[in-house]
């Protein structure tokens, strides 16, 4: 079966622009996570969806970052007024259910470069 997919694989934008990053989770997985990985670092949690709702958005760095999952499947991470410090790889992961008893499966990531 298909794994987690993310588009685009690479995104180059200019400072101040708006970007959207898309994640398609594994079919049937109700839990979806976004992480950000800066160069040379481990991934850092951004937001967790259980179904359509954002159950934990404590990792979003500021109000320029927003994510949606309107139908409980595909999710979009939206970044407004991008800054050079937003440059990173954005990883999406899904699991059958949320909580601490389900392994997360990661997508290939979107590499965002803000010039």
């Amino acid at each position, binding site marked *: 079966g298909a794994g987690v997919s993310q588009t685009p694989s690479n995104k180059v934008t200019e400072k101040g622009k708006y970007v959207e990053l898309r994640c398609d989770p594994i079919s049937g997985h109700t*839990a979806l*996570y976004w*992480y950000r990985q800066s160069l*040379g*670092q*481990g*991934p*850092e*949690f951004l937001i*967790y969806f*259980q179904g359509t709702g954002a*159950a*934990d958005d404590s*990792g979003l760095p500021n109000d320029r970052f927003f994510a949606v999952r309107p139908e409980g499947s595909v999710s979009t991470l939206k970044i407004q007024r991008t800054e050079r410090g937003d440059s990173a790889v954005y*990883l999406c992961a899904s*699991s059958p259910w*949320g*909580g*601490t*008893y*389900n*392994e*997360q*499966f*990661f*997508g*290939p*990531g979107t590499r965002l470069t803000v010039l």
Partner: protein
Amino acid sequence: ELKVEQNPLFLSMQEGKNYTIYCNYSTTSDRLYWYRQDPGKSLESLFVLLSNGAVKQEGRLMASLDTKARLSTLHITAAVHDLSATYFCAVHGSGNTGKLIFGQGTTLQVKP
């Protein structure tokens, strides 16, 4: 705040040698994950350690978990070049959301 620390952060070793990567975490957790990441690639799950004393082995890699010491180890036996990658450990953060807190990663370079 939960912290996950790995050491060493960088490891260069010759083929055929043994070595251990350490992962310490700062709060109680009965589950720990090890991932592998190749350059420019995503995370590949290696091991899920579910309880105190858990030991899992796959090929030349063996992982163990001591929840009382809040320590996991990833032991490499007779390293080969194909094991060159960055290895991350991760535990679940606070609450019951399942979010993962990762270590900084250990970059392993195996020289022929």
